[in-house]
């Protein structure tokens, strides 16, 4: 309820600014006239009363300014003025604004390009069912004081992993290689992946 009132009030202040300013003018004028009347009631002439009232009243413009500040109108109006000023400067000083715009454009473009790669490679989930369940397992070896990452997996180690890896629904190993295709045309080398049965099942695709 209060929020609705506040929002309506602010919109009115913003879009009917001249109206609100006229309101303020009338409101303050009324106050001033009352001061004059009061002074005249105590026996002063009207001109004396006006002078006294003006002295008592203090600076009107600064009050109006403060009222506008309170309504937060100045905040928005100043912003609009700043934007206008900026646009004018961009137009009148091309020696500065063209390089600035070009470097902004290049910077933004480069960022977008890098982000689309990062997004595709790192952020977007892998195109498999339940990609959040996929994990990579790496074989490493520790000898006395030596720790070696990515130690090659021996044939004997595979059954050990397969039997003991109880945290996984499926488990498979794969390695990349190359093969040469020969036949009627020129021989050609192609990249290959050698994998155990479990890989496709772990990915949730294909042979099942």
């Amino acid at each position, binding site marked *: *309820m*209060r*929020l609705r*009132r*506040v929002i309506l*009030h*602010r919109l009115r*202040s913003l879009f009917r600014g001249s109206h609100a300013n006229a*309101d*303020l003018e*009338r*409101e*303050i004028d*009324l*106050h*001033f006239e*009352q001061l004059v009347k009061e002074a005249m009631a105590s026996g002063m002439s009207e001109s004396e009363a006006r002078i006294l009232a003006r002295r008592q*009243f*203090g*600076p*009107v413009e*600064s*009050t109006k300014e*403060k*009222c506008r*500040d*309170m*309504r*937060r109108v100045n905040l928005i109006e100043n912003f609009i003025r700043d934007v206008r000023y900026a646009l004018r400067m961009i137009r009148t000083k091309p020696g500065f604004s063209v390089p600035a715009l070009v470097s902004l454009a290049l910077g933004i473009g480069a960022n977008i390009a890098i982000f689309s790669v990062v997004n595709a490679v790192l952020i977007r989930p892998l195109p498999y069912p339940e990609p959040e369940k996929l994990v990579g397992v790496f074989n490493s070896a520790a000898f006395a004081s030596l720790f070696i990452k990515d130690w090659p997996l021996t044939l004997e180690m595979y059954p050990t992993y397969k039997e003991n890896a109880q945290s996984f629904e499926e488990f498979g190993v794969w390695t990349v290689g190359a093969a040469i295709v020969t036949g009627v045309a020129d021989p050609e080398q192609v990249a290959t992946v050698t994998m155990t049965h479990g890989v496709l099942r772990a990915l949730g695709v294909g042979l099942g």
Partner: protein
Amino acid sequence: MPKPSDLLQGTLDLLILKTIAREPLHGWGIAKRIQVLSGEVLSVGQGSLYPALHRLEQQGWIEAEWKDSDLGRLAKVYSLTRAGRKQLERELNTWSRLSSAVQLLIQTA
């Protein structure tokens, strides 16, 4: 007439809310009533009254309407909103805590 003492920060809001709690009033009326009810001790100049009124209106504690008034012409008359009534309660509590703390300090220090 001695110069009226400066109002404590935040006290003006309380005075305004309390003054219009009884009946809706225009700016002039609020200033007059504060002056009269305080036995001419407090006087609120237009330079602080109107910004305060606009701030309170902005915050939704009070609302304003142009009405015929006792001044013989249309005046912007302020009244408390429901949220303003709650705010007045809070301000009164704060004030009584503050003033009793000051009182306590003056008596015992």
